[in-house]
């Protein structure tokens, strides 16, 4: 009885009173614009357009309608079920993902779609919400701390990686990558910045090592030279800024500078040594020096610097090996996105065509339904992953900027919501939602305008497809439901 009474007092009789209507408005604008864009993308110049409408745009409106019902159900639901049942949801989704691998029919090589009568749904899109809830639940545990606890870190990473592994097994690498966004939440919640930094440096080294293979400096490739100089600079900077040892920084800078100068001098005098090995030796020596100094002065952080310097060099040499292990089409996608391969008929075709479509839009675009590149099917997947092209071609710079500003507004609003959550659970969940949106925006738009490799993930609310629309709707409205109850939660 007392439990019942408790529920009555804590339950919010009207989620709508404290609902974040701004977010709802942004959501509605975006889904409607999305459906219109899909109509434009699937519109055909010939008379079959009526059927195309029924096929994509009409369906999308139905998805939106049902999506609104789902949103309403979520808003009417008890806000506590999400925290309470976070793990069961999560486990259920994992099982569903695993089952999908076996029962899903083969769709272009992937096994990720479940058929329910006329509908096909992609569990991977819904698992995002469950994973975010599970992660939030983990962090909201009593006295849970990420920093300094390898045990907790493993748990968190495990929660993220479990669906990733299952989705990769479904052969939906793109969707799996979207879960990587959640690592950002780990950082926000106290994971060491060093890990993020290491990841960032790894990406930079990878790009440099793969991109600059040809021109020679000091008998090594430009890429190798850049990696070595970058490593030296970062090691020096880290020893000074991170390990706070100005003496070590000075000595390292001096040593590195002298060794580079020496190499150039000898080279110009005609003395050709294997400079690559020389520099590696210098960096390894610097590592040893840092470790010894660290031992002497009890500066543990210098070990990290040493590990970083030696690790970076080792990593750069394993990159080519690693790269060779990628599938050819993945290699191609990376190379094209780095601007190394300009082959309009090959892997770059999609991106080239999408840039042509967007680029031909001009300032104000060609007008609604007047885009030639998209109508004539030059752009692949134009109603799904490449929907941004249609907007770019038909609505021009004005349209694309408007869409990006809409997303910016939505994400900033979610971040604001995240910051005002009194409970760890809601906050972590909100950050998860924000990260997922950021990741999708970055990758999808970046891919379409040629800044990121082609990874098949949708643009939230714009790309055609019920699963992604519902997935994002659920993600967002669970957040709104939690947010609307924020004043009821005791701190």
């Amino acid at each position, binding site marked *: 009885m007392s439990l019942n009474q408790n529920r009555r007092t804590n339950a919010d009789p009207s989620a709508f009173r404290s609902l974040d209507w701004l977010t709802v408005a942004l959501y509605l604008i975006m889904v409607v614009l999305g459906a219109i864009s899909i109509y434009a993308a699937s519109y055909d*110049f*010939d008379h079959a357009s009526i059927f195309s409408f029924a096929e994509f745009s009409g369906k999308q409106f139905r998805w939106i309608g049902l999506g609104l019902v789902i949103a309403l159900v979520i808003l009417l639901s008890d806000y506590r079920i999400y925290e309470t049942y976070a793990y069961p949801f999560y486990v259920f989704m994992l099982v569903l993902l695993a089952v999908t691998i076996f029962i899903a029919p083969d769709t272009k090589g992937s096994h990720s779609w479940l058929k329910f009568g006329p509908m096909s749904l992609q569990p991977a899109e819904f698992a995002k919400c469950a994973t975010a809830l599970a992660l939030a639940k983990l962090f909201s545990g009593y006295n849970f701390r990420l920093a300094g606890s390898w045990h907790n870190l493993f748990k968190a990473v495990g929660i993220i990686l479990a669906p990733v592994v299952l989705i990769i097994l479904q052969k939906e690498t793109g969707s799996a990558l979207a879960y990587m966004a959640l690592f950002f939440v780990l950082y*926000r919640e106290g994971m060491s910045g060093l890990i993020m930094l290491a990841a960032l440096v790894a990406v930079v080294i990878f790009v440099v090592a793969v991109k600059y293979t040809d021109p020679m400096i000091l008998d090594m490739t430009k890429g190798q030279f850049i990696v070595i100089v970058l490593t030296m600079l970062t090691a020096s900077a880290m020893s000074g800024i991170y390990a706070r040892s100005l003496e070590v920084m000075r000595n390292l800078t001096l040593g590195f500078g002298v060794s580079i100068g020496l190499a150039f001098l000898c080279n110009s005098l005609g003395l050709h040594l294997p400079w690559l090995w020389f520099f590696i030796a210098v960096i390894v020596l610097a590592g040893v020096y840092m470790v010894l100094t660290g031992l002497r002065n009890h500066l543990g952080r210098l070990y990290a610097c040493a590990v970083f310097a030696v690790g970076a060099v080792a990593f750069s040499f394993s990159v080519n090996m690693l790269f060779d292990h990628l599938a050819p089409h993945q290699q191609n996608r990376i190379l094209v996105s780095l601007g190394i391969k300009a082959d309009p*008929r090959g892997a770059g075709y999609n991106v080239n*065509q999408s*840039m*042509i*479509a*967007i*680029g*031909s*839009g*001009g*300032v104000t675009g060609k007008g609604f339904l007047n885009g*030639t*590149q998209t109508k*004539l*099917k*030059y752009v692949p997947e134009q109603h799904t992953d490449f929907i941004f092209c249609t907007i*770019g*071609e038909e609505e*021009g*710079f004005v349209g*694309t*900027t408007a869409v*990006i*500003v809409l*997303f*910016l507004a939505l*994400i*900033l609003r979610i*971040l604001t919501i995240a910051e005002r959550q009194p409970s760890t659970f809601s906050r972590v969940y909100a*950050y998860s939602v*924000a990260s997922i949106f*950021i990741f999708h*925006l*970055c990758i999808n*738009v*970046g891919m379409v*305008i040629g*800044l990121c490799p082609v990874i098949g993930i949708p643009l939230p609310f714009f790309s055609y497809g019920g699963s992604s629309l519902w997935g994002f709707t659920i993600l967002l409205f669970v957040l709104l439901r939690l947010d609307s109850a924020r004043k009821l939660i005791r701190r």
Partner: protein
Amino acid sequence: MVGGFVVLIAVIYIIRLFTLQVAEDKYKVFAENNAFLRKVQYPSRGLMYDRNGELVVYNQPAYDVMMIPRDMKGVDTLDFCRTVGITREQFDQRIDEMKKSPGYSVYTPQRFMTHLTARDYGRLQEKLYRYPGFYTQKRILRQYNYKAAANVLGNVREVNQDDIDRDEYYKPGDYTGDLGVEKSYERYLRGDKGVEILMRDAYGRIQGRFEEGALDMPPHSGRNLTLSLDIKLQQYAESLMVNKIGAVVAIEPKTGEILCMVSSPTYDPTLLVGRERGKNYRMLVSNDNADHPLFDRALMGAYPPGSTFKPGQALILLQEGIIDLNTAYPCYHGYINGGLKVGCHGHGSPIPVKPALQTSCNAFFCWGFKNMVDRRSKYGSSANAFEVWKNHLVQLGYGYKLGVDIPNEGRGFIPNAKFYDKFYGEGHWSANTIISVSIGQGEVLATPLQMANLCATIANRGHFITPHAVKAIQDTVMPEGLLDVRTPDIDRKWFEAVAEGMRMAVTGGTCRTANLPDIMVAGKTGTAQNPHGKDHSAFIGFAPYDNPQIAVAVYVENGGFGATYGVPIGSLVIEKYMNGEISPARKYIETNMLNANTRGNRVIKSKPKD
């Protein structure tokens, strides 16, 4: 901090979108190339009629086979080769050639084959649906009703990179006029290209016309030309010049219209049409081809004018007051002065200017020239006098291009005082040093066109209109300046006198062969010495004397005396033009000229193979 990161990303993306969509233009071009098949509609090139309305040059459709490489999918190559009549090897070779050409792109139409015959075209058109990526494009080829006047008409060739760079009208594979009227009237003849904008999807399928064809442009045919040529006369003059090297130019004095302009040896204009053009062109310009038929002798040949120069001399001497109509100079079988002798032939002595023209007296013109150039009392120095002399000649159309409406006109050569100053040293030359120029020898050179123009000027008694080969352009006016009257600074009465002298040459002098019973001809022979062997035979003449309809110049290289070839050919051309036929009494002259051969063993086949 997270918010800042998101804003940063958004800003980067917006900048990127700005460069893509606003700053860069290339994507719009790419997009157009992608989605639009701009099918060029070639206009019909302007036709050419002669002055009597005879159709001379017209068009015949030919078909180019176009191909868009990236759309060429699933074509049965062997079947295609059979249809258009080529071998598999030729097909592969052509594909290779196309790939090497600078304009190659898999997205844009490439010209796979040119000038498909009507039969192959019919076969191909029927089966075209089986060859995605291929389509045909209608082009035109020039056709000629008369195998004559190739040097005047010119021909049509494919544009080269220079043309494309110079004029944005041209795209690779277009045609442009080369040589002759085809070149100089290119912008009238070519017309305006039309375009049909078709939409093409990613699979190369045509999806209809863009905006229902609202932006399509129909082609506009080029303007027709009415040539000033009398094509029959041209043909006749060409036949007279067979097996002779040289030129015949006839002008209507009143209008400056060129009635015929023959350069011999000539060539068949149909050689430079169609697929064999390249091969034939190389054959015509080849150094092995001693005829150099593409060298238009009438227009570009620089010849010593010989005695045809004398009427001009007489005009200058009279105008400058060096002589009057009664001034007589002695001739003792030539001009003998200062240890110099310029030979002459037997005639009375001393004689004034008209008989001097009649008998083509060298001595008279040498004396006159000497008296002018060495008259320091009037001119101060020989150099000054010579400049005055030269300026008169320039006004008479010598030494510079006349500005005829056919490209590559030569300018001949009239030296100026500086030329001799350089050669002999300033003040170290006088009339006797350069006396041969007074009789059209030595340094002076003229084109047959300039000779004919001088004749027309005399026929007009004092003015001329720049010779031109086109009489009228359909629906438009003639280019500015072409029809202006140009009047040398010489009194009309002197022209009357010179004309009279030339009439006397016909009635009782060097050109008696031209003394037609029913047409009053006036003329002047020329026999030009040259270092290349036998004298050149030259003639200028006009008729009728009182109301000139035609002025003609004939120049036969190594033909001997002016009376041998120049006069008969000139008189035949005059008679043919005036009467339309040669009188029976003169048929033997015609036969002689048609059969005459000044070229020894180097006989060319007069009739081109058909």
